[in-house]
Structure formats: structure tokens, C-alpha cells
């Protein structure tokens, strides 16, 4: 039984930690609760409604060790790191890598530290918020994460603080001798009226086959503004499961840019609880799957208070035998009047064998609301293809241009130009070689700068 492999690994980890000294009791208790919950649930199967289209046997049947050191070539790391001016916290296979981090000059009132450090400094301050939004009940993976949790990032923004540069939390995945796993946590406490841009960047060495099981909890106090980029560029053999849960107080604004290019198996659960009037959640998503990539995005915008607003636009491009899942739920609680919840999902299939399962869901228990949802899946517009070919552009390039255009509709929402350009370039470059447009995009960008 495959769960046993993970439980054994947990036991070994426990024995080792014990020799290093006791943990705070709350952590030990949660670890136990997580392990018990995971043992009771086991890995989800396709009989579970929430996992109907996503087979996690590649994870369940895997053997993943826990990485111990963050040794990584500076040169290689430099090629993987986003070339933008930012504060940076780096983890290598889940292990904090101070040598690859850059936290100097953080403005007053802004704290970005590895979880281990936050625990050492004041574990009680962590214990309050950690696990409040995503507990062990959420899923077998959140239970597993809680049982193993050790490292991650803690971001605290004092009320009114504004961060001048993006905060990058990067997760580097190594191509080691054998696969490893990590269970990072991301905890954001954004104080009232604070403003920040957080970039979660998953990237790694070609050939890596590691498993990342992340839990992110984002607490936005009154009027806080958080732009959260999740740039998924992990190697195509990597396995990635994440639960991202935002809690939004009055007048806060959370914007998620979920840009998924990499990873062999990716499952994201993105949830926002809109708890205070005037809270706004924006979910923008773009996923591009090729080969046998499997990308599953489950989102929930939960309108728990009147006058809350959610807006979602997800676009998927699937080539080869890639598979995508989009499950978007908008929930409007009783008495959540005068809310607006908009959702749209469009998917483009570039190959006959690519597949998408799209399921928009509306659950409305209030009567004075404005909601809409829609999903479309199709091929490229034949008339537009002809118009391009009639200018001498070959069929494959025409298809590439139109695919790029499709992605562009989400990318134009992206506020950081460096990210939008990087993803546009990646999409152009991912197009099958015969209609690779990277050169064209680069040239056009250069011209634009002149």
C-alpha cells in the first residue's frame, strides 16, 4: 500500500528530528493530526469527485526522499532565477538556500523569512495563523503537508506598508540521483492597507522528477492589496500539488495570476473567501500543456459577505496528449446580496488527442446578485488562418500567431511586463518547432523599445 511509503518516511523523519531536540507541542500535535488524517483518507482516487479527472498514482506510487541540503550551482541557479529586480527567498528541493536569497533592504514593516527562522524567533506567532485556512481536513495532500511541514516562507506586512519591489519566493527543483519531495508552506499576513506583489516561482533542472506539495495561506486584512503570481515553470517530470487559500477582509483586493507552463502533473486548488464588504478577488489563469502534461485548476470564489466581487478568466492551451482540467466554482452565501461574480474559461486544443474537462459551477443562495459564467473549447478560427496565409504566412506560423493571441488575452491583464513578456516568449517557444515564434516576439519587443 502506497500510503505506507510516506508514513514510513514520516517515521524516519520523526526519529531523526527527535535526536535534534523536541518541537513545540502545537507543531507535534498538528503533525500527528496530519499523519492520522492522511492515514485515514489515503491518496484520493478518481472515485473522489474533486479528483475525478486527475490521477495521482504517479505521486502515490512514487518513492520520494526528503532533501537535506540546498547545494546548488550558483551559475545554474542564476539561469533559472527571474531576471527582475526583487527581494528573493530561495528554496532548493524545499530546503532554504540562504546563498541564493537576497533580502537586503526590505522596507520597514516588511518581513520575509523562511518558516524555520520564523519558528525559531517566535513559534507562537506562527502557530496562530498557520493552518487556520487550510487545515488537515482540506485534502489528503494538506494533511500530508501538515505532517511533514518544515520549511517555507512567511511574509508579514505591517499595516500601511508598501513593498517597492516584487517579493519572489522561488522553488528550485534539482535533477538528483533519486526523486525527492518537499512540503513547503507559504504564509502571508498582509496588514491593513498594505500593498505587495508576491511571485511564487517554480522552476528547476531538466530531468528533475520531484514532488512538491505546497500549502499557501494568504490573509488580507482590511484594505490590503496583494498581487500573487504563481509562475509554474517546473521541469516536465515534476509533480506539483498546491492548495492556495486567501482570506479577504473588507475592501481588500487579491489578484492571482496563475501562469502554468511547466510541471508533469500539476493540481492547484485556489480558494478565496471574500469575508468583508468591498473585497475583490481576481483570478487570472493561463495554462499551456504539451507532451503528456496534466494541469488541473480548481478554483473557488466564495462570496461570504454582501457587496463582494470576483472576476475570473482562465485560458488553457493543450497540445499533443496534454490534459487540462478547469473546475471553477462561484459560491454566494445566503444574505450575500449585491455581489458580482464573473467567470470565464476558454480552451484551445491544438491536437486531436489533447483533452480538457471544464466545469463551471455556480452556487447561489442570495437573490440580488450579478453572476455569469461560461466555458468554451475549440480550435483556431479558420477565417483568421486564411487571412494570415493570404499574406504569405505559412499554416503553422499562422496557427502559432493565433495561439499566441489567445494567450495574450490573459497576459494583457498581467501587470508586471517582465512576467508577461517571459510567458509570451515561453508560449511562442513552446509552440512546436515548426511554428516557433520566439524570434518574432523578441524582435517585436526590441522594436517596441526603440
Amino acid at each position, binding site marked *: 500500500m502506497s500510503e505506507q511509503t510516506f508514513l514510513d518516511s514520516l517515521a524516519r523523519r520523526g526519529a531523526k528530528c527527535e535526536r535534534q531536540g523536541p518541537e513545540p507541542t502545537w507543531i507535534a500535535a498538528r503533525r500527528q493530526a496530519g499523519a492520522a488524517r492522511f492515514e485515514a483518507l489515503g491518496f484520493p482516487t478518481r472515485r473522489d469527485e474533486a479528483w475525478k479527472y486527475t490521477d495521482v498514482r504517479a505521486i502515490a506510487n512514487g518513492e520520494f526522499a526528503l532533501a537535506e541540503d540546498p547545494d546548488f550551482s550558483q551559475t545554474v541557479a542564476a539561469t533559472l532565477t527571474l531576471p527582475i529586480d526583487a527581494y528573493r527567498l530561495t528554496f532548493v528541493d524545499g530546503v532554504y538556500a540562504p546563498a541564493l536569497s537576497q533580502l537586503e533592504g526590505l522596507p520597514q514593516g516588511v518581513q520575509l523569512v523562511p518558516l524555520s527562522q520564523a519558528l525559531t524567533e517566535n513559534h507562537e506567532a506562527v502557530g496562530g495563523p498557520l493552518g487556520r485556512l487550510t487545515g488537515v481536513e482540506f485534502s489528503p495532500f494538506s494533511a500530508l503537508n501538515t505532517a511533514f511541514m518544515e520549511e517555507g516562507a512567511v511574509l508579514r506586512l505591517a499595516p500601511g506598508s508598501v513593498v517597492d519591489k516584487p517579493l519572489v519566493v522561488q522553488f528550485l527543483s534539482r535533477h538528483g540521483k533519486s526523486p525527492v519531495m518537499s512540503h513547503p508552506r507559504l504564509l502571508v499576513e498582509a496588514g491593513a492597507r498594505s500593498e505587495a506583489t508576491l511571485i511564487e516561482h517554480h522552476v528547476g533542472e531538466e530531468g528533475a522528477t520531484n514532488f512538491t506539495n505546497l500549502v499557501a495561506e494568504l490573509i488580507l486584512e482590511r484594505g490590503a492589496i496583494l498581487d500573487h503570481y504563481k509562475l509554474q515553470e517546473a521541469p516536465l517530470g515534476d509533480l506539483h500539488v498546491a492548495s492556495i487559500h486567501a482570506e479577504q477582509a473588507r475592501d481588500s483586493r487579491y489578484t492571482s495570476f496563475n501562469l502554468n507552463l511547466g510541471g508533469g502533473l500539476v493540481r492547484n486548488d485556489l480558494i478565496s473567501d471574500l469575508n468583508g464588504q468591498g473585497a475583490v478577488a481576481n483570478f487570472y489563469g493561463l495554462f499551456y500543456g504539451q507532451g503528456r502534461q496534466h494541469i488541473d485548476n480548481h478554483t473557488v470564489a466564495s462570496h461570504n459577505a454582501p457587496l463582494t466581487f470576483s472576476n475570473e478568466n482562465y485560458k488553457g492551451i493543450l497540445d499533443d496528449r496534454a490534459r487540462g482540467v478547469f473546475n471553477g466554482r462561484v459560491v454566494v452565501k445566503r444574505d450575500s446580496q449585491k455581489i458580482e461574480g464573473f467567470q470565464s474559461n476558454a480552451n484551445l486544443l491544438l491536437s486531436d488527442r489533447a483533452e480538457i474537462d471544464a466545469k463551471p459551477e455556480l452556487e447561489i443562495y442570495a437573490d440580488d446578485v450579478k453572476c455569469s459564467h461560461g466555458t468554451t473549447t475549440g480550435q483556431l478560427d479558420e*477565417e483568421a488562418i486564411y487571412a494570415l496565409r493570404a*499574406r504569405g504566412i505559412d499554416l503553422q506560423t499562422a496557427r502559432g500567431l493565433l495561439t499566441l493571441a489567445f494567450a495574450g488575452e490573459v497576459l494583457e491583464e498581467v501587470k508586471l511586463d517582465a512576467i508577461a513578456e517571459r510567458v509570451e516568449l515561453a508560449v511562442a517557444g513552446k509552440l512546436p518547432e515548426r511554428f516557433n515564434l520566439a524570434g518574432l516576439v523578441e524582435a517585436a519587443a526590441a522594436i517596441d523599445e526603440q
Partner: protein
Amino acid sequence: MLEVKDLYVEVDGQAILKGLNLTIKAGEVHAIMGPNGAGKSTLSAVIAGKDGYEVTQGSITFEGKDVLEMEVEERAQAGLLLGFQYPVEIPGVKNIYLLKAALNAQRTARGEEEIPAPEFMKLVKDKLGDMKMDASFLQRAVNEGFSGGEKKRNEILQMLVLQPKLAMLDEIDSGLDIDAMKVVADGVNSLRAEDRGILLVTHYQRLLDYIVPDRVHVLVDGRIARSGDAELAKQLEARGYDWVVEESAA
């Protein structure tokens, strides 16, 4: 350079062109006129290779090559370019991408190097100026949200950048006010060259006041009923098409 011989074309099983003959030599401007439904747009669409037109008889050759054997993009790369009556909006595809990809496709087909960025930029900026268009237009999506006049200017801009050997312009004057028509006509006139043919398809004579053709053909019921010089267009303006239709029926 273009030779259309005894061309029969059907659309959805219905005969549209019924034995059309047309020869265009380098340096000439030809105008195809005729009543609605005569098959004017069909002719240019078939030459450009649009789907849905079945050639049941006849041939089209361009510089000695069999056009009907060529893919749509090969025709354009060879220098046969059609300016559309109804240019398609292509959301998300920037004009600059279209122009650059099209120009490079043509150069690659000729075995030339791709155009260096600075040279391309200079070329495009010059032509934008000719068409009285703003540089910001390059970053806009092809035809998206363009007015009728802007779409037509954009078609001509593409011609100016791509420098076709044979430019075919389908109802390029439709939907244009007089100022826009002058800009478009100036653009077309600047394309006139000894080594280039131009084929204008138009319903009205007014365009031909600005672009004076060498030859005018009247298309009636799928074949050319009458040919003449620019004077013929003026006659049509004065007398309408009925007399040609009647003569050809007789």
C-alpha cells in the same frame, strides 16, 4: 504576368464564372467592373486561393506557374496578394507580427535572409507615414476595433510593405469617405510600377477617377462581356450596366 484562361468556377455547386479570360501584363492597371453578382469578387478570391471555390475548368498561370497547384501562402509568397473587401479582425495578433512574419515568409521563400529589425522598422514607419497612420497602430491587433476606413488603409499598408508583383484589390473603395479614398488611392498609385500589375475590382467608377486604369473589363454573368480603356468606365458611369448586359445577351 497573369493569365486566366477559360475559367469556370462553382460555389456550392452553382456556376459563378463561366469561361473567363484575362491577361495582365507587368506595368498595367486593370479594373474589373460589373453589376452585383456577376462574379467580380469570385475571380480575385480564386486567384488568391480562398476555400470554397471549385475550379471545374480552365487555368490560371502567374509568371508561367500553375497558380491552382499552389497553396494559399505560396501564392502570396510568389507575389500574388489580395486586399480584402472585408478585412478580418484578428484579436491578439499585433499588426507588427503580421507584417514581419509576412515579409519574412516572402523573403525566405525567395531564399533571402530575414529582414534586420532596424531596416524593417524604417520601412514600416515610412509606409505608415504614406498611409497617414500612427505608429501606435503597430502594437494594435490586426483590424480589431478599426473603422471601415482604417481597415482599408491597413490592407494598402500591407501591400506597400510586402510589395507584391500583382496587387489585387477587392472593392477597396467600399465604405470609404472621400478623404479616406484619396489616401487609399494615393497608396495604390504609389504601387504603380513597370514590373507590377494591379487588378482593381470595383462596382463604382468613382475610384477610377483617382486610379486611372489602363484596361477596364465588364464582367457579366461569369465572363468578360466587354473590355476597353478608361473611357469605358466613364461610359458605364453615364449609362449604367444594362446596355452591356443586353449586348452580351444578344
